């Protein structure tokens, strides 16, 4: 591992303890619900009990009779200011509050503003709304049937189709499949899930009517983008961008769910503007699960073509995407399906083609990524399932099949048939390491023995390639704003620094790792580099933290900005040491004269000189800013192996072992990287075996609380075994790649493959996630292994 700084400096490769933990372990974190302002009011929201209904009447009279209830805001009220609709990040439109029709279960209907939280809740209970329920469209396939009601006539639609998108060579792929020796095919559905960060969403909108200034305290992963959206949505009512300040303090988990602008934010702003007082809105868990952006909901028809001996030749995937009633995806790319076209994965073969159609239904809008670059998880699930499917078909060991088809190290940079240029990779060693640690060959022998006695165990592999770090300006933007990110470093006269970023940590440890990057580049101890994010008044503009983009973009910006400062330090050193710049050499923390190492100036001396004794003509001070536009995405990868034991009577699944080998390039802080992987693995386990948003035929959500939306506990989550290989990113200034999401992407197919492997000898070729004991039991009954009572 790269590490050439002392522990005191704490540059790259050190497992520095996190700076942020002092406050978090002592209850001094500052989350949005901790904000308390003088005169602050509370907002609570009346939500629809129907998935699709006309609103006939809203009677707020009883609510308004409650002492302390100040206002009930409806869509009709917002309509007067043209604030009842807002644009989505995907150029669709979304209701802030409905004027006529509700489009999904738990949609906002109106908002109660009161002096206290409890009174606002009473107000919500007292509002009487009369609905005329209509037949909801819940099934994405049926949404396209002729004669179905058109959900979005306002978009000029005559059916419920939103968009069609395709990538790759259709003709060549069809031709290959027509002539292939082996074709395997599965219908793979990735269900609707929810990020369910432990902190829900919320905000305090504080409008100062005298200054016409809005301060918005909120839980957002992208404060700058949110400010711009606020200015775009409400500029016409006077919220001019320079008079909007978004403050994202500590965030209790994001995972993509805190990228979108939710209606509640806009209503809170409107309420604050109308009443002239700060208004707090904090969701409860049911609102969070039922109405906030979902993730996934992709139904994929997957096909893989190969030779009989297992040379993978082509991939074809057709997808139907359910976006709910509006396409409000938090998708950072120009492609409507985000980064789905990474679906060719880690394998080298000729052709591929993918096409996709998105539809409207009466479900909440989305989607968000759930801890991945938008749509990568779906892509990886498709390919990794299909590789196992092929192995089963041709009777080849699935590890061997992967080894034989990996893109080879010397093929990088590799141009995938669907258009990505993979920057670097070395896939074989990662899989081999995982196999060695888990004892792969022994496990296969054990499995063969156990099958003889009717015992069920399975071994599942996933060798994924991720695509993170959105992104290069040629392909990536949000509302047209390119997806650079930024760092601004100020070093004060005594050599202590403050650095600000356009990203926003939600637990990733930016306060520690960014300091380490700067420490690495400048030799200033990380301990003396204070990191700030999340205040749009002070931080440089950036697009925020999601899609594992902070290190690839803002981390790179930090390194480049620090290098600008090092260049300045070199000039000052040359001046002070009276030599030419070329005669100086850099060693972490100081410049010295080549051949005369005793003649040196430390970074602290050089910084001090920049304020006290800088060369004539040089700008004083020691500050630099950089906006980093990455030349490419980064392509972290890994190989995971999961071993499961299944109770043949009940279908219960026990993960016996899970080995995860990740490669995220150069590592800034090994402790934090490992922690990210542990967490991502549990969030991969979640959709693989537990989580799914379940709707009935009328569009009611059936499991909208933590009593039924099954977030894994420490008991369900196995003890993860991790390891790594290092393949530095060739284009990133410090050779790093993103890491936070790889395990969420890689774990579900590893787990699914293991469970399906345990049942494959019974003729099972695929099971949709989440794979529950009930699903396994159904299969065991169907295959005649056990009898139902």
């Amino acid at each position, binding site marked *: 591992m790269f590490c050439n700084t002392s522990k005191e400096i704490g540059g790259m490769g050190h497992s520095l303890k996190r700076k942020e933990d002092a406050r978090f372990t002592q209850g001094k974190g500052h989350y949005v619900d901790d904000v308390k302002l003088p005169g602050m009011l509370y907002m609570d929201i009346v939500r629809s*009990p129907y998935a699709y209904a006309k609103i006939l009447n809203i009677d707020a009279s009883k609510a308004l009779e409650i002492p302390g209830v100040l206002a009930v805001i409806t869509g009709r009220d917002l309509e007067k200011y043209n604030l009842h609709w807002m644009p989505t990040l995907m150029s669709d439109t979304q209701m802030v509050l409905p004027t006529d029709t509700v489009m999904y279960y738990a949609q906002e209907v109106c908002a109660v503003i009161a002096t206290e939280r409890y009174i606002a809740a009473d107000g919500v209970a007292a509002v009487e709304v009369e609905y005329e329920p209509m037949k909801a469209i819940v099934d994405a396939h049926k949404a396209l049937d002729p004669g179905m009601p058109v959900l979005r006539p306002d978009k000029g639609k005559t059916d419920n189709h939103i968009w069609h998108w395709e990538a790759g060579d259709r003709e060549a792929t069809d031709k290959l499949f027509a002539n292939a020796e082996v074709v395997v095919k599965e219908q793979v559905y990735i269900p609707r899930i929810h990020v369910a960060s432990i902190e829900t969403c919320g905000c305090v909108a504080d409008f100062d009517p005298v200054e016409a200034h809005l301060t918005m305290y909120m839980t957002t992963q992208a404060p700058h983008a949110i400010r711009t959206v606020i200015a775009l949505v409400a500029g016409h009512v006077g919220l001019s961008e320079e008079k909007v300040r978004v403050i994202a303090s500590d965030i209790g988990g994001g995972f993509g769910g805190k990228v979108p602008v939710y209606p509640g934010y806009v209503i809170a702003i409107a309420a604050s503007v109308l009443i002239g007082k700060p208004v707090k809105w904090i969701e409860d868990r049911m609102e969070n699960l039922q109405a906030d952006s979902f993730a996934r909901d992709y139904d994929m028809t997957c096909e893989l073509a190969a030779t009989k001996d297992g040379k993978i030749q082509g991939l074809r995937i057709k997808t139907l995407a359910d976006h709910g009633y509006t396409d409000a995806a938090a998708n950072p790319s120009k492609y409507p399906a985000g980064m789905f076209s990474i679906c060719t994965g880690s394998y080298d073969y000729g052709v591929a083609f993918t096409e996709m159609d998105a539809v409207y239904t009466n479900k909440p809008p989305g989607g968000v990524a759930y801890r991945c670059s938008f749509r990568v998880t779906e892509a990886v699930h498709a390919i990794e399932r299909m590789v196992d499917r092929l192995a089963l078909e041709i009777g080849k060991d699935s590890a061997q099949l992967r080894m034989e088809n990996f893109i080879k190290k010397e093929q990088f940079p590799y141009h995938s048939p669907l258009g990505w240029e993979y920057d670097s990779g070395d896939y074989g060693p990662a899989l081999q390491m995982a196999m060695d640690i888990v004892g792969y060959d022994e496990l296969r022998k054990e499995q063969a023995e156990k099958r003889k006695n009717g015992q069920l165990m399975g071994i599942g592999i996933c060798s994924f390639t991720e695509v993170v770090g959105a992104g290069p300006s040629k392909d990536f933007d949000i509302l047209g704003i390119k997806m650079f990110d930024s760092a601004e470093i100020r070093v004060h006269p005594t050599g202590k620094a403050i650095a600000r970023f356009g990203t926003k940590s939600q637990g990733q440890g930016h306060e520690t790792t960014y300091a380490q990057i700067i420490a690495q580049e400048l030799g200033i101890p990380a301990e003396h580099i204070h990191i700030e994010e999340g205040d749009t008044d002070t931080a440089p503009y950036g697009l925020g933290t999601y899609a594992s983009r902070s290190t690839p973009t803002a981390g790179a910006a930090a390194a480049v900005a620090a290098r600008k400062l090092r260049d300045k330090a070199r000039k000052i050193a040359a001046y002070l040491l009276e030599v030419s710049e070329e005669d100086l050499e850099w060693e972490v923390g100081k410049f010295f004269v080549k051949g005369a190492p005793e003649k040196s100036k430390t970074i602290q001396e050089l910084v001090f000189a920049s304020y006290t004794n800088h060369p004539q003509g040089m700008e004083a001070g020691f500050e630099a800013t950089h906006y980093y536009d990455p030349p490419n995405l980064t392509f972290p990868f890994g190989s995971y192996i999961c071993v499961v034991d299944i109770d043949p009577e009940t279908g219960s699944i026990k993960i016996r072992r899970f080995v995860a080998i990740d490669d995220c390039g150069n590592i800034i802080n090994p402790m934090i990287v490992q922690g990210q992987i542990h967490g991502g693995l549990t969030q991969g386990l979640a959709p693989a075996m537990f989580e799914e948003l379940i709707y009935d035929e009328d569009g009611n959500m*059936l499991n909208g609380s933590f009593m039924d939306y099954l977030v894994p506990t420490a008991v369900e989550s196995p003890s993860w075994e991790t390891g790594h290989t290092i393949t530095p990113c060739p284009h990133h200034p410090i050779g790093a790649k993103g890491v936070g999401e790889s395990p969420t992407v890689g774990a579900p197919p590893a787990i699914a493959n293991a469970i399906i492997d345990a049942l494959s000898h019974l003729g099972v070729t695929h099971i949709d996630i989440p794979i529950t004991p009930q699903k396994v039991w159904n299969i065991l009954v169907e295959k005649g292994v056990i009898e139902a009572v």
Partner: protein
Amino acid sequence: MTLSGTYTVNAPAQTIWDMMMDPEILARITPAITKLEKLDDENFKAIAEVKIGPVGGSFSGNLKMVDKVQPESFKLIIQQNSKIGNAAAEVNMNMKALSDTQTEVSFTGDVKLSGMLNTMGGRVITPVANMLSKQFFEALEKEVNG
């Protein structure tokens, strides 16, 4: 959710029919209903109080009686709203004469619940429905036996 129930009552079909057509008696035998006000031949205004263990709710709404085939069958269309969610149901009631003194009363219905009732009620809805239908038949029998 579909519901159904069958019960044999010791009374002629016509007697049962007459009882069901009397809003006062219908209110008395239908569990939870506290008030049934006849608006016209088909429409009633209904108020219900449901209390099961610690859970309780006040409902109000409409009840519509249609497709009447005396004394064999009719259909109830029910819409009840409450703070914890709304219920909509269509119930087909059938009275099949087994003899001059015995009638088989049966119903099949489809119930839709919304809001909190639906979200949190999944575990309890079927048992509640079964309990209520059992109570209905018991009350009906009691009414018949006077």
